[in-house]
């Protein structure tokens, strides 16, 4: 029975850092360039070429460490990790082994309220890509990606289900994206994950033998792969077998994991400190500077939206999903001075719809928060109807026009002037004695008839709220 077992999961995430040049060379990092064009002698492992550290990478690593509540080490060390493969031109990868830049942080899972510890974050070089050409049986090597800076973020085995693993990864990705260190793209491989999965009997404190799962390139596949692997472990153990420690590849098409290499085949990486680079030193001032520029993190922002702005969890989630969007929301909210829920509704509805349709980024919209505030005030004051408001906003969004100008030009203003309304109402009451009598006899639904008539007389531009109030007052006599 699967329920007799407790899964234990630890994750290793590789996140590409958003830098314009590589970790140790001046070559560019853009995705999808002509093969082998983003390369220098350093990337190609030419004799005599030496690595020179890109300072921006260290800034981003510190930022990440702080956002994930890690200790940032003032002294860390580069190491060489050796293996022969054509995607590794030097025959070794420069990474951090014994002394990583960040240690001991964590994130909190919201559903379970549970802490997942992060053991370490270190900086390393990405490898190139081998392209296996089935047609002519050749394997071609593209070294554009060689030396792209990566952060490896290693969790403790604190996760207990595939769902927890996915939640952890989503939180991690949101944090990395929100602090501008990673683009969060699983498909292009800029955010990659390996999962260490084992199971133990419920109540046991001794972890089972773990397997490392690779090739997990979407949240869906991660969940699927972990669940598949858990089931496999339980099957094997229930059948009296033992799990061999190994690396397994997830096959998406077949929905199964299969052995890639066993522990015995594991490479001896022959780590030793990189003699071409000095120790990586970080000053307390650099850490303080990173701390000062760290934006509010998605989880904290969501909590603030719920607690301070009194929004629902759902609204808070939608509004904080993307940093630019939430920033625009907050600027408009501050300018409008109406209750946040109203602004939130606009953002989740019209603003989001038009952004999606137009492909415009939240930071590049044509309307100003002041204009947005003016629009909301016009609606709130009854100057225009909610529907007219949408029409006005559409124009503001596309042209940056002033709402007052659009309202005037399109004649969208509602009649709220009680004098003008009273005149129409008085005429209607005088012209419809039977309906007046019906209302006074208790048939209150007749009110709808009168509202309709007033609106008709005013060509739809009457303020329904004022009309209702006046009608009720006059019908009651």
């Amino acid at each position: 029975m699967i329920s007799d077992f407790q899964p234990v999961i630890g994750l290793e995430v590789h996140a590409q850092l958003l830098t314009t040049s590589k970790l140790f060379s001046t070559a560019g990092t853009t995705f999808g360039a002509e093969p082998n064009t983003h390369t220098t002698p350093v990337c190609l492992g030419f004799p005599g070429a030496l690595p020179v550290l890109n300072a921006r990478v260290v800034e981003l690593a510190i930022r990440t460490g702080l956002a994930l509540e890690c200790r940032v080490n003032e002294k860390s060390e580069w190491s060489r990790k050796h293996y022969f493969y054509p995607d590794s031109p030097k025959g070794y990868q420069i990474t951090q082994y014994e002394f990583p830049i960040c240690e001991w942080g964590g994130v909190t899972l919201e559903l379970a309220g549970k802490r997942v510890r992060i053991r370490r974050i270190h900086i390393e070089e990405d490898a190139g890509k081998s392209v296996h050409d089935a047609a002519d049986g050749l394997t071609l090597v593209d070294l554009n990606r060689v030396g792209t800076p990566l952060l490896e973020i290693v969790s403790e085995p604190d996760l207990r289900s595939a769902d927890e693993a996915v939640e952890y990864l989503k939180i991690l990705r949101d944090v990395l994206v929100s602090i501008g260190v990673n683009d969060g793209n699983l498909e292009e491989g800029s955010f990659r994950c390996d999962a260490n999965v084992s199971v133990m009997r419920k109540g046991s404190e001794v972890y089972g033998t773990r397997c490392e799962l690779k090739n997990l390139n979407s949240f869906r596949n991660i969940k699927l792969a972990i669940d598949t692997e858990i089931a496999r472990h339980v099957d094997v153990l229930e059948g009296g077998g033992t799990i061999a420690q190994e690396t397994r590849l997830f096959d998406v098409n077949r929905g199964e994991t299969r052995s890639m290499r066993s522990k015995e085949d594991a490479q001896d990486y022959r780590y030793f400190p990189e003699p071409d680079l000095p120790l990586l030193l970080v000053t307390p001032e650099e850490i303080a500077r990173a701390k000062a520029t760290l934006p509010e993190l998605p989880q904290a922002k969501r909590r603030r939206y719920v607690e301070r702005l009194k929004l629902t969890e759902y609204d808070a989630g939608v509004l904080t999903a993307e940093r630019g969007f939430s920033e625009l929301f907050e600027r408009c909210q501050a300018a409008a001075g109406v209750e946040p829920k109203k602004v939130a509704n606009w953002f989740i509805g019209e603003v989001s719809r038009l952004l999606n349709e137009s492909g415009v980024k939240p930071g590049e919209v044509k309307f100003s928060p002041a204009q947005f505030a003016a629009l909301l005030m016009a609606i709130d004051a009854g100057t225009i109807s909610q529907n007219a408001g949408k029409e006005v906003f559409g124009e503001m969004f596309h042209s940056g026009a002033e709402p007052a100008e659009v309202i005037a030009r399109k004649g969208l203003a509602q009649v709220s002037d009680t004098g003008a309304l009273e005149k129409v109402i008085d005429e209607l009451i005088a012209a419809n004695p039977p309906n007046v009598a019906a209302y006074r006899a208790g048939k209150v639904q007749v009110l709808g008839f009168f509202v309709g008539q007033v609106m008709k007389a005013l060509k739809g531009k009457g303020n329904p709220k004022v009309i209702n109030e006046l009608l009720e007052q006059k019908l009651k006599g």
Partner: protein
Amino acid sequence: MLDLPLWALASKLAGKELTSVEVTQACLSRIAATDPKVGAFLRVDPEGALSAARAADASASRGPLHGVPVALKDNLLTAGVETTAGSQILAGFVPPTDATVTARLKAAGAVIVGKTNLDEFAMGSSTESSAFQKTKNPYALERTPGGSSGGSAAAVAARQVFGALGSDTGGSIRQPAALCNVVGLKPTWGRVSRSGVVAYASSLDQVGPLARSVRDAALLLQVIAGRDAHDATSADVAVPDFAATLEDGVKGLRIGLPREYFVEGMDPEVAAAIRDAAKTLEAAGATVREVSLPHTKHALAAYYVIAPAEASSNLARYDGVRFGHRAKDVKQLKDLYERSRAEGFGPEVKRRIMLGTFALSAGYHDAYYVKAQQVRTLIRRDFDQAFADVDVVLSAASPTCAWLLGEKLDDPLAMYLMDVLTLPTNLAGLPGLSVPTAKSSGGLPIGAQLIGKPFDEATLLRAARALERERTLDAWSPAL
């Protein structure tokens, strides 16, 4: 003209008493006449050299080496000129860029005449492990010039060029300098950029000059030293004017004679020459005392773990994929690696790759690599303690004079012992210099080694100059 020291030639070129073209032409003729016997050069570049010489003669701007013909060890990259590091695996490799030292020489106006022979990847003490040729000692053609910068030492000694650069990982500048009656200086690790130096053991490698006088060495060091943005380990330490203090003498200088450097198996004549050098310096005003560097006996073992470990890593890039030798008719990736490397590397390089790979392997890493690093720390500490009492340490650069070619070729351990007096300096990262001090009864050169505090090359040069002034061995040229 070819007997002139570099500094004197530079001043004649500056004064337009000579043209760079005539001087370069003279060097090329000398190489043509003598190199069939000496074998110092792997590659001579007459067109490049003459065109640089013509440019120098035509140019108004004058660097300190304006128009001076020099040579580079073939593990220093030269853009557009083949650079092999003495290995078949790099045969035909034409680098796209200059090493920083090459670029600095060029910027100073030097004319690069060619590339000199070396032990393959600078691994050796006799220049015999070169994949291409053997270099002979210009003072005794049946003998080794030492190594691994044997080609540079021989070229300078043979008056083929006025100065040269070599590299020193365990003594590869100082030992051949001693065997060839020239001055050789290994700077403090970090003093000179390693960018564009074909790496052997990164934490030990350092480029330095070989020249016929101490002043020449100072001049060359002045040009190549200093922080380089392309080498993260190059030190941001001010470079003093080395020539300015060169003639200041040794009055009051405290010199230490390490008792552990008078080793068993050392040629008694060499030991006597060093004690004699100490007396000479004492007479010139220095004080001499015995010092102890107690961990010296472990240096050789530590070196032959650390250097091969780094070498096994640095040489992993020679895989036949992107440059250099590539085995033909291979079907599998594994075969490409195994055959390219088996065909491309010579026996000494293979030996060190295997040693280093073993020393870093799981299960052995702590017993070898980590232990060797601990020894390294102790050796550095020995020097720190010695330098509390003395300003420089004086010893022999090589325990013997030049030995016969082939003599130690089949006995790696005997060969490794030839570096026993020089490699502790590399482990400690200190500057070391070898200056001619005597002519043996057999007519062979003997060099004295001076070891200094970190970044104190100026004191080494000053002390060496004081000895040189008394010895005048710079006037002793080989009969070729």
